[in-house]
């Protein structure tokens, strides 16, 4: 490269940069608007949330969050008057709507299910994927390309198409609506992504490192655990986050194979209902809480995003 590179002809003019910036920022603002709207709706009262025309500014309220975490029942004013005064701020809020809190809602167990199934399947998929990727990366496996394509192709199957026999299989094995069943299922779906991504990361670690370690007296296994794994930490972490996001977001299997004990958040959220249809502030509150971890992960993953969404095909 010449010394002119800094001012090369490929550098766009400042006017075209400004125009580009304005257009991109406009798109970004429009694209993010639905998400901002969800965030705002979570802090509206049910009445404000369905007002016509839609209210941009409204009295902030945490009623949506209170409704999300509780089940309530409507009572007569006489009954409410006979009750002792409310103990907590959220009881007071519910009382002001002529209702009493009947108990906690199912959102906490559902959230825990999402966490347990998400982390469980991610852990297994990454463990299996790491060792398989190492084998594909370091040993000459015959038909390796075919085997890798086979692994990838399992992910191309429409979930609903495999759901039928998996449903039957789970029914026979007693795995329907169990966390174990969902963990195994998501592990199987994620292992293909994990193998593909991790093979890319492993290929980038020079063989010489572990060979040097083995010359120094390490066995192959010791070299794998003490030399290769530490080198692959970033790749493993990025892969884990991708697996976690998949399990976190998955809906098709969850809605067909779980109904209660193992239900995760995505099939649960649409069924958060209040009196007369969906309780939109509570749905918005659940959606916001559900999206927050993803927001964090997206920021953490930025450098590896491209690799993850293309199964490692584009590395940059």
């Amino acid at each position, binding site marked *: *490269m010449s010394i002119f590179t800094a001012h090369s002809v490929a550098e766009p003019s400042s006017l075209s940069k400004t125009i580009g910036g304005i257009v991109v920022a406009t798109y970004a603002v429009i694209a993010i608007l639905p998400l901002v709207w969800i965030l705002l709706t979570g802090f509206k009262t049910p009445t404000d949330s369905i007002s016509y025309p839609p209210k941009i500014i409204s009295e902030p309220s945490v009623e949506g969050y209170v409704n999300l975490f509780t089940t309530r029942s409507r009572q007569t004013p006489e009954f409410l008057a006979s009750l002792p005064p409310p103990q907590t701020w959220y009881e007071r809020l519910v009382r002001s709507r002529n209702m009493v809190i009947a108990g906690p809602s199912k959102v906490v167990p559902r959230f825990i299910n999402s966490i347990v199934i998400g982390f469980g399947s991610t852990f297994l998929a990454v463990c299996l994927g790491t060792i398989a990727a190492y084998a594909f990366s370091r*040993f000459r496996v015959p038909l390796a390309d075919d085997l890798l394509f086979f692994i990838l192709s399992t992910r191309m199957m*429409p979930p609903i198409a495999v759901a039928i026999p998996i449903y039957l299989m789970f029914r026979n094995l007693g795995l329907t609506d169990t966390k174990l069943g969902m963990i195994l299922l998501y592990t199987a779906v994620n292992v293909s992504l994990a193998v593909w991504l991790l093979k890319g990361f492993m290929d980038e670690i020079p063989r010489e490192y572990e060979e040097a370690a083995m010359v120094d007296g390490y066995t192959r296994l010791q070299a794998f655990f003490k030399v290769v794994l530490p080198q692959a930490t970033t790749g493993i972490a990025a892969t884990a986050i991708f697996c976690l996001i998949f399990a976190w977001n998955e809906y098709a299997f969850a809605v067909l194979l779980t109904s209660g004990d193992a239900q995760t958040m995505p099939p649960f959220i649409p069924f958060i209902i209040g009196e007369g249809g969906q309780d939109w502030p509570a749905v918005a509150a659940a959606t916001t809480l559900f999206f927050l971890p993803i927001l964090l992960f997206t920021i953490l993953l930025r450098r590896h995003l491209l690799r993850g969404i293309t199964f490692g095909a584009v590395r940059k």
Partner: protein
Amino acid sequence: MSTLAERAVARTPRRLAFRLGGLSDRAIAWLFITPSVLLLLAINIFPLLWTIQLSFTNYRANRPNAALRYVGLDNYRDILSDPDVWHAMQATAHFVLWSIVLEMLLGFGLALLINRRFRGHSFWTTVILLPMMLSPAVVGNFWTFLLQPQIGLFNSAVALFTGADPSSFQMIGDVALAPWSIIMVDTWMWTPYVMLICLAGLRSIPDYIYEAAEVDRASPWRQFWSITLPMVMPFLMLAILFRAIENFKMFDMVNLLTSGGPGSTTEVASITLKREAFEKWRTGYSSALAIILFVTVFGAANIYVRALDRVKQR
């Protein structure tokens, strides 16, 4: 498959110098690949084979004790002559085609602009990426709220710019608009995906090519058609491949946004499959449909991967 792993092990070169104890390389390769392959066999391949078997029967999962009868290719014949299935295929094709066209135009356009590297471009890129990371089901669910006539944000926003009455149209309930509402939400969600891949393509083009073109006094227009587009093409093809496969089997977002309605206007293939399998409980019939869908996706993906290689070689 274990024989494959064994052969894998057998051909692994013996690194005599490094076999100073512990497990041999063969054993390790065997040990490392088998668990993943076994899991995939149990949870992907075994169910696939089972689906193939069921597709030749009249089995109904809600009547497990009824007599099982093999019906040969009847299920396949019924599917191919079923107007509902053809309708679902058309709805799917419409959805796949238009969502890809819009995502390509918007995604490539945005990538071109972001590639100008204006100040703050990486911040805006992250903001744009967000919709793609979210759960399609939850996205579909909250878009039903945004698309409500009157109370929804979308109708009011359209009303603001066009002056139309916000209650005069409804995106989800209208036969003509519903197919476009699923395309719109999909485009909102997945344009960032195409953008990100195109951006990688643009950044892979070395500056000196443009410098050479500048020396030859090629116009910006000419530079775009002769350098930028051909060089980004493999990346664009890759994005098309992934989006086409994903949208062909689209279920979650559409199921929650329109659940196939109104009537069956947005009933894409996966929704038909769910209805046949888990509402009408025609397990045999829906297994055959599942196999047809899988073969279609798989075949398209295969052809496409080969086309992609050809583009890359050029």
